């Protein structure tokens, strides 16, 4: 195809997305940096961090979407070249990704006479090509000029949750190309002279199913940015623009230096963790994401060669920049937890991708489900990271937190007559992975959004047409181990107060567990959705029936007929929205963390404590942990437990075979061809990746 030269400028900019690392410092930045005093710089860092934190909190307080209100917010201050130097967030991928739209507007719009960048302007964007993840993540930034000099941008990146598209909720299961996914907006000027343009707001509102949320979220980002702008201007008035420009740049410089020093402390080597997804979105299929982490000297190289090929018309593709962004969730949250969250960290990181790879999306392929692919990678990063860090800092060697997402997506008209489309907040209540010396935290949060919260059920019920039947821990939601994973949450919803609502689920791991254990710990079990249409739940509630399940484990207890009657179905976590009626029920587990270490090394008293608290089943206490106890008093039988564990170890050795002998039988097996349609050649989808196996 011939590209007409004057139209090429409107194609996606393939150069800008490679500028993930900090731009080379300008002469102005270098000169200013050299003049900084240590004490003033220290005060600067604290003040800027407080300004960013205030921005994040303000955004949350003013926003309307589930994710914005519960903390899925990255708020920061960018250099005049677009690097995000200061960032307040627990959603760390935006700490390196949200700079790309800013760099785009600097490259394409700053000096364009039809647009320009002036005080009072505001820019909006959600094209995932620049944001890296998916188009439900939307951003806004404002420039700050002092005496004509562009000194910084201030902005927020937040998941708004509804972005139009052929399905609601911002994650389109059935997307066949990016044009099915809804709004794809590269940076555009939505306001000037401190006033938003009503014509553009009208356009944005019209492109989504939930115009109220769209506009309130946009204005929340802007209001927070304007407050931060006032703080920054006050500070510059006190310290001068040169100091500010130099200090902002210095934050990036010292972050990169510190990251390289931390990497140098790790043992050199290659740490591998292939990851397997069990969905393309609409189909149950096997895909491979081949991760190797190569550490040499001061640098880590993330290698993705050997992953499954690009999927031309399925939404689990991810842009490479999104994968690298998600790597920062591991690095910022765990290994570089004591360093600033900014793209200076990438001075210690390199990467390699195949051209034809579903983790290096090209062209018009859909990417709506990219978050699933990205978190699958990230859990592999936790596992390879645990192997990489244990020798030098065991406290960093943690099991993966859950996420196969298990996000419930919904859309329709709420009980107040307002259009709505969003997700429920339980993704922010997953369990953390087991870790050296301690169990994972129960319902810790979302590992990729560590400052987020799942909110009260009453807050959700007040404006969504649902009645929560229960929401609490689930004893079959985490991985067993010497230190068990933290429990996830199980919840049940009833459609309430409206005739109908569309509900679906986004996630993976219904066939191949999403969250795998480390150092012998077990995976969190597969998760799935249970629905009951034409349910008699309304009648049972009206009768105040006290025998209804109040926990997820009661729902699956095998001790009698279910009181709830209706058309019961069990379904995949990846299911497009379908209509449900008043009284229908919907149950899902948002699972827990990975197990850490051999379960037979778990303290038997800890198992009994879990048993008393309803956090482990009797079956697991007996069969996985080999604990023996008195059933009436729940007291440990120490001698019997030791004997049972010794017997179980003998049984392991009796069942096991030497490695080579085991391989002879193992290598004869392969998955059915029906689930390998998108995998690529099995077992190595691409030639370069044929390095992960010792066999």
């Amino acid at each position, binding site marked *: 195809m011939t590209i007409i030269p004057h139209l090429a400028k409107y194609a996606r900019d393939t150069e800008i997305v490679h500028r993930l690392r900090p731009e080379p410092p300008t002469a102005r930045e270098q000169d200013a940096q050299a003049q900084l005093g240590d004490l003033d710089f220290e005060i600067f860092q604290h003040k800027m961090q407080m300004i960013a934190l205030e921005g994040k909190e303000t955004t949350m307080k003013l926003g309307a979407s589930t994710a914005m209100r519960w903390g899925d917010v990255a708020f920061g201050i960018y250099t005049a070249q677009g690097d995000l130097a200061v960032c307040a967030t627990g959603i760390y991928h935006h700490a390196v990704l949200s700079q790309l739209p800013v760099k785009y507007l600097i490259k394409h719009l700053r000096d364009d006479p039809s647009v320009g960048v002036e005080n009072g302007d505001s820019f909006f964007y959600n094209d995932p090509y620049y944001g890296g993840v998916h188009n439900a993540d939307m951003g806004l930034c404002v420039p700050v000029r002092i005496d004509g000099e562009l000194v910084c941008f201030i902005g927020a990146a937040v998941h708004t949750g509804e972005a139009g598209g052929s399905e609601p909720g911002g994650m389109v299961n059935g997307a066949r190309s990016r044009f099915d996914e809804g709004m794809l907006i590269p940076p555009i000027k939505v306001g000037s002279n401190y006033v938003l343009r009503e014509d553009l707001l009208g356009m944005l509102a019209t492109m989504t199913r939930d115009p109220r949320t769209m506009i309130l979220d946009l204005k929340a980002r802007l209001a927070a940015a304007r407050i931060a702008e006032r703080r920054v201007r006050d500070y510059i008035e006190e310290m001068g623009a040169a100091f500010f420009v130099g200090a902002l740049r210095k934050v990036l410089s010292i972050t990169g230096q510190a990251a390289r020093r931390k990497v140098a402390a790790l*043992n*050199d*080597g*290659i*740490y*591998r*963790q292939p990851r*397997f997804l*069990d969905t393309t979105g609409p189909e149950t299929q096997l895909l491979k994401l081949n991760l190797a982490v190569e550490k040499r000297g001061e640098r880590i190289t993330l290698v993705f060669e050997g992953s499954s090929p690009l999927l031309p018309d399925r939404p689990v593709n991810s842009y490479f920049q999104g994968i690298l962004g998600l790597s920062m969730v591991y690095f910022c949250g765990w290994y570089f937890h004591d360093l600033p969250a900014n793209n200076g960290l990438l001075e210690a990181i390199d990467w390699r991708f195949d051209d034809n790879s579903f983790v290096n999306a090209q062209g018009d392929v859909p990417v709506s489900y990219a978050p699933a692919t990205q978190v699958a990678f990230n859990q592999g990063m936790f596992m*390879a990271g645990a*192997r990489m860090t*244990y*020798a030098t800092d065991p406290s960093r060697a943690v099991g993966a937190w859950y996420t196969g997402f298990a996000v419930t997506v919904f859309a329709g008209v709420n009980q107040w007559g307002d259009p709505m489309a969003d997700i429920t907040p339980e993704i922010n209540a997953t369990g953390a992975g087991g870790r*050296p010396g301690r169990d994972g935290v129960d319902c810790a949060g979302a590992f990729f959004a560590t400052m987020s919260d799942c909110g009260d059920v009453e807050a959700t019920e007040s404006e969504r047409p649902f009645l929560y039947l229960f929401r609490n821990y689930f004893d*079959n939601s985490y991985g067993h181990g010497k230190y068990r994973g933290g429990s996830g949450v199980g919840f049940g919803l009833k459609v309430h107060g409206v005739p109908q609502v569309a509900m679906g689920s986004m996630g993976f791991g219904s*066939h*191949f*567990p999403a969250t*795998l*254990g480390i*150092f*012998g*710990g*077990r*995976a969190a*079990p*597969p998760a*799935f959705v249970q629905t009951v249409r034409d349910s008699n739940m309304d009648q049972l509630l009206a009768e105040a029936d006290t025998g209804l399940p109040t926990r997820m484990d009661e729902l*699956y207890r*095998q001790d009698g007929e279910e009181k709830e009657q209706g058309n019961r179905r*069990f*379904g995949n976590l990846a299911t497009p929205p379908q209509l449900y009626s008043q009284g229908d029920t919907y149950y899902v587990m948002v699972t827990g963390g990975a197990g*850490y*270490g*051999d379960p*037979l090394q778990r303290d038997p008293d800890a198992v009994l404590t879990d048993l008393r608290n309803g956090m482990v089943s009797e079956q697991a206490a007996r*069969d996985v942990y080999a604990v023996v106890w008195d059933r009436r008093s729940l007291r440990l039988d120490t001698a019997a437990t030791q004997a049972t564990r010794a017997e*179980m*170890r*003998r049984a*392991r*050795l009796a069942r*096991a*075979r*030497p*490695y*080579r002998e*085991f*391989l002879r039988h*193992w290598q004869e*097996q*392969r*998955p059915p061809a029906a*689930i390998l349609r998108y995998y690529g050649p*099995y*077992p*190595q989808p691409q030639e370069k990746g044929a390095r*992960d196996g*010792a*066999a």
Partner: protein
Amino acid sequence: MNKTVRITENLSIDLERESWTCHACGHDLGPARSNYKEGCVVAEIPLSEAHPPLVHGQSYSFTPDPDFCRLIEFYCPSCGTIIENEYLPPGHPITHDIELDVDALKRKHGGRP
């Protein structure tokens, strides 16, 4: 030179002998420049044993789908401790998950490559 360095919860390396060892019992698990899994004994664990079904007769039950996924455990041949496990599709090559630069490790701990 420190003789033994800890690498994971369950593994150490004896730098003088350049061999993997089980942290729990000290058993030799083979050359440190190779995959420690080759020095383990290995078993495939039935998925219904590791993750028992809580729903029967359905595609979704809390038990992984054996078409997609199998569980392999690697044990110390001496003490039976699980050194590591892998959830892999059937027949997929075993992962060489820790490939250390042993010479660099020896230099770091005061020895000669």
